[in-house]
């Protein structure tokens, strides 16, 4: 994935950066990626340390330390937890999406290139998985195999690889009908080389857009699982779980739930804007989806 992205990005940087949609999206996402990378240096306090319970935003605790976004029931600083929480989101959403893409890409390329019974079998598997409502699937997987980052990656891969498979398969069938692929086959290039060198780069445009959207869905998924109490095990700070923890006291202390919600909304909105912007730019350039 990264190889394709950088190649395409290098090619398109000027046009893409002129789109305000892309820039706003990139800023929203960038803020949290920055937070994830540098959480230990920018977070004011330890995210797990109990300091002063239920402080309102912008107040000073008994010991005079300032809580910009307040503290939660256990006295943990919400700003610090949000910044550290970005780590969980960026790491697991990134990893899960990357794994799903690897599986979906490989399956889609093979199905679209070879067609025949391979395609039939893979398409059937994809259809079966897609006839599950996604969240039911997640709940089933997490409840059976337990809640951990790795199981989230597994569940997301299982649930979203079929969608990626479909897109890649359709693109591959389209591209495989082009003359240059026929030329490569005549030249005697190996199937793998044709798939990776001839077909994949030409499918990159729509796939980059899809990757942004999927990253957003995965972020939402991790948030929702956390919200349902099925996310990363405590005390790992993660945004969905923070909402879940704060919910019983939300009437009196809405800050405990509102800030994590703003954080996750910024992230998912940023990714959608990125996807939209890139698609618009590539449509204007007369290629892509």
């Amino acid at each position, binding site marked *: 994935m990264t190889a394709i992205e950088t190649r395409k990005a290098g090619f398109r940087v000027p046009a893409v950066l002129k789109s305000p949609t892309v820039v706003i999206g990139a800023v929203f996402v960038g803020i949290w990626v920055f937070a994830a990378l540098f959480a230990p240096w920018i977070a004011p306090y330890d995210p797990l340390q109990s300091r002063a319970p239920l402080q309102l935003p912008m107040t000073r605790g008994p010991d005079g330390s300032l809580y910009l976004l307040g503290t939660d029931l256990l006295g943990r600083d919400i700003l610090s937890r949000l910044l550290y929480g970005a780590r969980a989101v960026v790491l697991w959403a990134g990893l899960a999406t990357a794994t799903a893409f690897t599986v979906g890409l490989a399956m889609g390329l093979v199905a679209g290139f070879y067609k025949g019974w391979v395609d039939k079998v893979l398409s059937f598997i994809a259809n079966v998985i897609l*006839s599950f409502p996604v969240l*039911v699937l997640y709940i089933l997987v997490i409840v059976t195999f337990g809640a951990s980052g790795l199981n989230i990656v597994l569940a997301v891969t299982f649930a979203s690889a079929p969608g990626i498979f479909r897109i890649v398969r359709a693109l591959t069938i389209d591209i495989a009908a082009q003359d240059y692929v026929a030329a490569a086959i005549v030249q005697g290039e190996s199937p793998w080389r044709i798939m990776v060198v001839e077909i994949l780069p030409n499918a990159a445009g729509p796939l980059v857009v899809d990757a942004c959207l999927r990253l957003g869905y995965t972020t939402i998924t991790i948030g929702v699982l956390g919200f349902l109490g099925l996310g990363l095990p405590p005390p790992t700070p993660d945004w969905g779980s923070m909402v879940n923890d704060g919910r019983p006291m939300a009437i009196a202390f809405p800050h405990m739930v509102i800030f994590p919600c703003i954080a996750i909304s910024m992230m998912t909105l940023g990714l959608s804007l990125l996807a939209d912007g890139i698609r618009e730019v590539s449509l204007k350039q007369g290629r892509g989806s």
Partner: protein
Amino acid sequence: MLAAVLKKLAEVVGAMLVVSFIVFLVLEANVEDVAVKVLGAYSAPDQRAAWLEANGYLDPFLVRYVRWLWDFVTLDWGQSTLFRVPVTEILPQRLAMTGILAGVTLVVSTVLSLVLGILAGMNEGSITDRTVSFVSVLTTSIPEFATAVFLSAIFVFWLGWLPGASTMISGFTARELVLPVAVLTLYSAGYLARITRASMVEAMRSPYVRTALMKGASTSRIVLQHALRNALIAPVTVIMLHIPWLLSGVIVVEVFFAYKGFGTLLYEAALNSDVFLIEACAMVSVVVVVATQLISDGLYRLLNPRLRVSAKPAGATA
């Protein structure tokens, strides 16, 4: 036509069989586990052994699967360990509650998104178009639980206009339905509006609309008579395909507002390892998804004359 429908049906039944097998495999492959879940963690080993034997759990896996599948088809879904009543006794009423929630949402969001999408798509690039597009990106990007928090913050905590929970304890009230429907609508209407808009834009660019324009037909005539009919094909199919999405959203919204529907039932069953209830809920949701896919497929064929004969519809594969 008939052959195509039969082929589709066979495909769907095949997919459902595989799904049912996976559900059974995940939940009942380990019989010891099932015994612990049904009898509780403090049951004695010989108690469990007796229960397993009495309920035919010593039979080979495949035999048990076929029997289970038969029980499912004949509506013998077992006893819920959480509610201590047969699953078939609680599931229908919970499904009905979710049906009300989903039905109202579907109506509100369909009307809203079609109107907005058509208005936006009629004049590509206008201020209306840009506003609708921006708002729909905004509402579909925000996770449902965050929308629920934001709306509750405004209408429950700040303005105090609406109740924050929809337990319907003292009978069914429309007031308690407002927030859950609003959250689901915001999430799904944006997506539908975008599809309608795109489809409308395409129709407005088409040669037949240009011809109508040059003939001097009025805008309302062009939109209502020419563009709309074709522009509605995509959204109508998407509305049906959207129901599985709605189902996922429904779980979150029901849990958030403590609405006693199918979503909370599945959630409670999952949290309490209520095996038979989880199985029934999972199977019911799969049936719902597959049914909507079939309906959407049929509608697509019905609305799009080009696809009535053969060929696979692009937007609707199960």
